[in-house]
């Protein structure tokens, strides 16, 4: 059992949860994730370890409640507990001092980016962080990331905060200007965003690393469910990743595999929504 010590709402459907998990807090490195299972009979869900406090024995998760399982996880109140939290899993990010780097986060990807930015800052990199969301309500962790970065740029699709447009806008400007072109780019977010970033940095040959989010079951390399095509090889994101060279990833294949259970999930949502509606009606 893993106790929930805090559960904050950062934006619509986006929660920051702190759990007691002393061993994981001690062992984890940037880029790693945990497999979370709320209770008996529930699904195992991969979530990035956003932050950790080895002294307090806690880890921080940023969770976007999109489907039935993540919704149930974020509904756990402070003082409640989560039955299973296993990790840290995945390879740690290869952190070195590149000099100038750009870190790009979209939506909940921003949360996944946070431990990366922190580790890159500790290694002495000069960081430009570009984060984006649909509107100001979906832009998260701006203050925390701002404190770690030399520059923080924000984009929103509706222009309600920062510049109007996508994260690729400011990134494109950076790359075009030899005075501020990054040596490396880290991008985390929706698959189409990571694909767009990869396409921008391929031509100028800027090393680009993305953190992939395929469907996972065990997270330990046993099931093969998380496979992605990277270059000419099939890789298991949970043990070989989740970070990969963006220029080699087959993003279209990944997006496509992520829709595998769309029909099944929709039926489940309908089922849970109905139950809630019935409860309310009572």
């Amino acid at each position, binding site marked *: 059992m893993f106790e929930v010590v805090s559960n904050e709402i950062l934006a619509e459907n986006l929660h920051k949860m702190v759990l007691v998990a002393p061993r994981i807090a001690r062992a984890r490195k940037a880029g790693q994730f945990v497999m979370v299972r709320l209770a008996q009979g529930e699904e195992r869900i991969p979530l990035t370890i956003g932050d950790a406090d080895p002294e307090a024995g806690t880890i921080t998760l940023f969770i976007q409640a999109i489907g039935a399982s993540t919704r*149930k996880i974020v509904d756990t109140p402070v003082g409640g507990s989560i039955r299973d939290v296993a*990790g840290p899993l995945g390879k740690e990010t290869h952190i070195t001092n590149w000099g100038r780097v750009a870190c790009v986060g979209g939506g909940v990807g921003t949360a996944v980016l946070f431990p990366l930015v922190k580790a890159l800052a500790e290694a002495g990199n000069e960081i430009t962080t570009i984060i984006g969301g649909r509107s100001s309500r979906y832009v998260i962790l701006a203050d925390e990331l701002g404190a770690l970065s030399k520059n923080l740029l924000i984009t929103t699709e509706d222009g309600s905060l920062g510049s109007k447009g996508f994260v690729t806008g400011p990134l494109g400007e950076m790359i075009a200007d030899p005075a501020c072109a990054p040596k490396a780019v880290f991008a985390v977010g929706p698959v189409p965003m990571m694909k767009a970033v990869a396409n921008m940095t391929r031509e100028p040959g800027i090393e680009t690393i993305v953190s992939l989010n395929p469907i996972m079951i065990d997270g330990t*390399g046993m099931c093969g469910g998380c496979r992605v095509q990277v270059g000419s090889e099939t890789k298991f994101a949970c043990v070989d990743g989740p970070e990969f060279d963006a220029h080699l990833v087959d993003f279209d294949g990944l997006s*496509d595999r992520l829709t*595998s259970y769309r029909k099944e999930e929709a039926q489940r949502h309908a089922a849970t929504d109905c139950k809630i509606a019935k409860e309310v009606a009572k």
Partner: protein
Amino acid sequence: MSNDLSPKERMAIERVHMPELPADERSKNFEEVNQGLTPEQAVAEAQRCLQCKSRNCVAGCPVGVSIPEFIDALASDDLPRAAQVLRGDNALPAVCGRVCPQETQCEALCVRGKKGDAVAIGYLERYVADWAMQHPEGLIAIEAPEPTGKSVAVVGCGPAGLTAAGELARQGHKVTIFEALHDTGGVLRYGIPEFRLPKEIIDREVAVLSRMGVTIECNVIIGKTLTIPQLRSEFDAVFIANGAGLPTMLNIMGENLKGVYAANEFLTRVNLMEAGRRADSSTPILQRDEVAVIGGGNTAMDCVRTARRLGAKRAMIVYRRSETEMPARVEEIKHAKEEGVEFIMLTAPIAIVPTEDGWVSALRCQKMELGPADDSGRRRPQAIEGSEFDLPAGIVINAVGTSANPLLTATAPDLTLNKWGNIVADEEGETSIPGVFAGGDIVRGGATVILAMGDGKRAAAAIDKYLKR
């Protein structure tokens, strides 16, 4: 009935038939297929045993169960004694009685098998083990051992780890099992389906260990949460039994299409995470009318029979050799056939054909013929030119095998591995690190429950010796 029968009388008894659920009924649910023997059947079958001096059967058993002794007790209807004999040699008899390939082990060497049918040793083992579970009061109590003050960490809660833990606890050592998944049993739970091995059996066997003082910590991944060097410093000895690992890919076109599963994913979703078993299960699984399973081992049989139970109208095994070469247990093949599984033999997959929107539509195959024997002693399949054809399928499951998982070994640089990445261990299970032992699939590659248990038992004896040095 008396057990003072003459050999002639014993020879006159015919081998028992295990009562089974009717095939059309069971192929729609996950209930156990084999229903177990009645008391009369069990005693009569036990009386078929000639109690011969040569004890060939014992030699055929990787853990050396005292087979004639437990069968003799059963033939005399002395179940407490039969159970005691069995428990003394085998930590998981109710599991072995259900999943061991007896026909190639103990029963293969039974004297009675030379002319007619071997004694149904597996069925009898299961009968005695099940009786013992239901009659804990009838069992001879095991005395709690004197604590030795030594501690042992066991990595992995599969058959090898469970067996070693039991043996070590019996010696009075303090044992902690670390398991990466959220539940116990290893392949017994996430791989082997309930229609062959009910989860309750695993729970009960695990409960016996807990009563003996073994601690089990799930959600701990050795190599990640804790490392072997850390365990080595916190415990007096370590036994590694983390199983086989990564699925082997087919390396054919279309392998990453939607609807293509590796066997472990398919089975884990259903067995460990209850997908398709309960209407309200939160784990999704695909269900299609035509399911093609590639492979001929126990894993392939489990996948195809599970697919059938999830509603597949056409559930097919595609195997590149012929049925005689299939490594699956004979009983599993028989049960699969009865349940309407189609066997497409001498057929190798060459590609997976997509629909326009990225789903599987068919398995492209090629017919094979058998050439001369290869290193494994089995005849090598050779492709027949121009024999390609498409097998329509909405789901394709790859059940061709696994290779060693590097997750643990990557953080234990002092551990010597062989060229396939398996841990190198000597006869007694000792590895290149003093005080660290290993056994089961991680040493052998994909093998069997009983071989894993045999490793656990031998390693426990070696660890005990090591700790007493």
